[in-house]
């Protein structure tokens, strides 16, 4: 996966709670056997009507957010299905950072495996970013090393588990890292509880 540290772009405000992974990538697009090419389908049924025409007032269709790499949404982002096609679609569309007050666990884990930085901020901070992002064009700069998001002259600090931070900063292959623990795994297997 690609390393990630500094991301600068306009903020896309998606002012919704409980955005589920069925909305991020609908089931009819899950049948591919590759990891790539899902970006064109992200939020498909919010972006396009039943005739395939763009729904103009949906944020991703508004020209001012074009080229955005930072998606800001409300609580419990990525709930529901475990489909990793959701982060694949978000990344392939162009977002490297998702900012929300909270994330569903599986989606949160999936982000770290794909070089997407999920940032948790307070509800009040998110509401501030959403409001500013909706009213005008809000430019932001994310710095993972310093754990900051800077927008409109204000610096927002975020917390991140050091293990995942290092993983993202270096773009490491987690499986290759785990192979270094082979002796521990072998030892565990010798004493592991099993009946059949």
């Amino acid at each position: 996966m690609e390393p990630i540290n500094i991301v600068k772009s306009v903020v896309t405000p998606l002012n919704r709670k409980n955005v589920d992974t069925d909305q991020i990538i609908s089931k009819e697009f899950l049948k591919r056997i590759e990891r790539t090419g899902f970006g064109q389908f992200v939020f498909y049924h919010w972006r396009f009507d039943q005739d395939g025409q763009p729904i103009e007032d949906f944020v991703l269709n508004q020209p001012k957010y074009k080229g955005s790499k930072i998606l800001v949404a409300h609580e419990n982002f990525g709930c529901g299905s475990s489909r990793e096609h959701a982060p694949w679609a978000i990344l392939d569309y162009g977002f490297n950072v998702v900012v929300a007050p909270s994330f569903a666990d599986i989606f949160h884990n999936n982000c770290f495996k794909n070089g997407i930085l999920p940032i948790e901020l307070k509800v009040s901070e998110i509401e501030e970013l959403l409001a500013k992002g909706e009213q005008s064009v809000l430019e932001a700069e994310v710095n993972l090393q310093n754990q900051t998001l800077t927008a409109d002259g204000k610096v927002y600090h975020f917390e991140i588990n050091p293990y995942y931070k290092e993983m993202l900063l270096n773009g490491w292959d987690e499986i290759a890292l785990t192979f270094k623990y082979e002796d521990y795994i072998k030892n565990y297997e010798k004493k592991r509880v099993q009946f059949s």
Partner: protein
Amino acid sequence: MGKNIIEKVWDQHVVYHEDGKPDLLYIDLHLLHEVTSPQAFEGLRLNHRKVRRPDLCFATMDHNVPTKNLPIINDPIAKTQINTLAKNCEEFGVPLADMGHPDQGIVHVIGPQLGLTQPGKTIVCGDSHTSTHGAFGAIAFGIGTSEVEHVLSTQTLWQSKPKTMQIHVKGELGFGVTAKDIILAIIAKFGIDVGTGHIVEFTGDAIHKLSMEERMTICNMSIEAGAKAGLISPDEITVDYVKGRKYTPQGDKFEEAKKYWLSLASDPDATYNKTLVIETSEIEPFVTWGTNPSMGSGVSKTVPYASNYTEESDKQALKKALTYMDLQEGTPLTDIEIQHVFIGSCTNSRLHDLRAAASVIKGKYVHPNVRAIVVPGSHSVKKLAEEEGIDKIFKDAGFEWRESGCSMCLAMNEDVVPAGERCASTSNRNFEGRQGTGARTHLVSPPMAAAAAIAGHFVDVREIMNVPV
């Protein structure tokens, strides 16, 4: 101080611990299906890696298999995915119950049925409803495809130890109230993200009186409350269910296992990071009216009013949901007419569920405006139901009786609800478009779905059930 089952099972599986890092956790059982595994196997191939423990893996085909006219698959992309799984399992030596195999079925139905699911195991699958297996006192959770690849390569996962939560169901369950109603009531009361970052143990007499199949329904939907996993401490009912299954330890080994399994139950003085209590007197047969599983109410209620909510974001969410569902504030739930009924999914497709629905429809007919289908959870469930004559009850009433699979729960195969139409569904998610683009889903228990099929709208199933003597 005593330990709860979550701590016991977790601690038992830590391969490597270092402060400030996630734990390296050993995985006892890895279940696979055709939709979330192809990219993981491809990753192995690209990196010249092998499956470390194929003996701890088990694969089946469920998400996009057709449920009629087998073995013809009309969708060429679905066919590719199904063929890819078969090829991958062969190449990497992973056991597979493919289409037509007697062990085939929804992955969360066959795990328990085959005895692969056992108390005290860590179980993962690239599917969020893996939480189902927690009914046995296992730590079972859904993972993404990168994690599937990680488990295939290493039989482990890096996981931060979740917090623990107890959800205590207090009191006796009322007549006509099912496990589905308990879990829908829990999600409605405490919210769709109450469990985030936690593993939940469900406790209380009402829980421990349930059969294993009912417990699976509850744990299945713990993910809909945001929980990492949901589980129930093993007891005699658990052990009785596991006994004598295909992959269960036999003879002396079983006795040894039983002792160990029962020892995993939470200690009487165990504590949790958080405890929530729900009274059974609050729980009646449930119907969801919105676009996430927390948007539901007892069948005697109405669609809520925006004025019931204080937060602006909740009012907005209600408005959006009701627009999508084409419902008005204050409409009695029993006034909502439906055009489709789906009895199936990893939540409610087991023999117990089919029996419960059949008992409601026996001798009655599906309403002329309704198309109703039953999709048994596995090949084996279907066969057992047919031996009991349950298929005949459904067919005589006008239901379609199908082959097993995920089917209309997520409409990846041909079983789709058309745009603008309503479905009373025993599945687990009422998200926008879940059962088909523009389709409107109402989540209910199998008896409630059966009752709606006959009436053409929601009814309180207790009014048409025989009161027990």
